[in-house]
């Protein structure tokens, strides 16, 4: 089955979404990430969406849910790399990524996760 790879960087997990995601793939990623947080004892998750052309309400919900699950497992989530057109569209769509922190790129995201809360 098609899967999105999850990379381990120290105590962080990095996911770079590079395919046009369908709903089943988004749900699989949510499950895989939650399992990997526990398995790898990750303290932070970086979700890089710089290659995503759109974020609709379903993908948005997946990101929000993943962040909430990570939070329960004592890991923080940062969404990075959102394209300007995606940000404009999200706001017009009315989607708020509740509980999700964002950074401009992976580097800024790592910095954010390394800072104490």
């Amino acid at each position, binding site marked *: 089955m098609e899967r999105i790879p999850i990379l381990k960087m120290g105590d962080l997990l990095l996911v770079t979404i590079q395919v046009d995601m369908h709903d089943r793939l988004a749900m699989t990623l949510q499950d895989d990430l939650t399992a990997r947080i526990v398995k790898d004892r990750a303290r932070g998750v970086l979700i890089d969406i710089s290659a995503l052309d759109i974020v*609709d309400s379903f993908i948005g919900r997946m990101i929000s849910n993943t962040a909430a699950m990570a939070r329960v497992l004592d890991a923080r989530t940062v969404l990075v790399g959102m394209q300007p057109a995606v940000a404009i*569209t999200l706001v017009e769509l009315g989607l708020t990524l509740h509980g999700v922190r964002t950074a401009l790129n992976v580097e800024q995201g790592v910095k954010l996760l390394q800072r104490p809360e």
Partner: protein
Amino acid sequence: MNQYDVAALNLPIRSDEDVVRLRQSVREQMIGAGFSLIDQTKMITAASELARNTLRYGGGGEAHLHKLQNGLRRGIGLTFVDHGPGIPDIAQALADGYSTGGGMGLGLSGAKRLADEFDIESAPGQGTTVKISKWKPF
């Protein structure tokens, strides 16, 4: 009156993969018509929401993609048709946050905000037809 281009595309919406293919077709048409990246993104996102509704609530159906022309104005139109159970209360379904599925309840209302024109026809047992269009600014 809009003149519909004869070379309209008919796309089936029967699976998750069809939704992805539809998004790609909408992108190609929007690029071909010379829309800005922001307008492309808005229309593709609206199409994604409506295609998901067609699949989840309508039990599948199809989308028609067509070019629009009104005088000198040009645009792209999308029509989603399903023969599912229909929507008993359209006003309620259009309200933000109303969801019978697993979404955030932004499918219809969000698509309406992202498109320039939005039209919905539905009745219980009759299926649902949703039309959206995006016009190129002069």
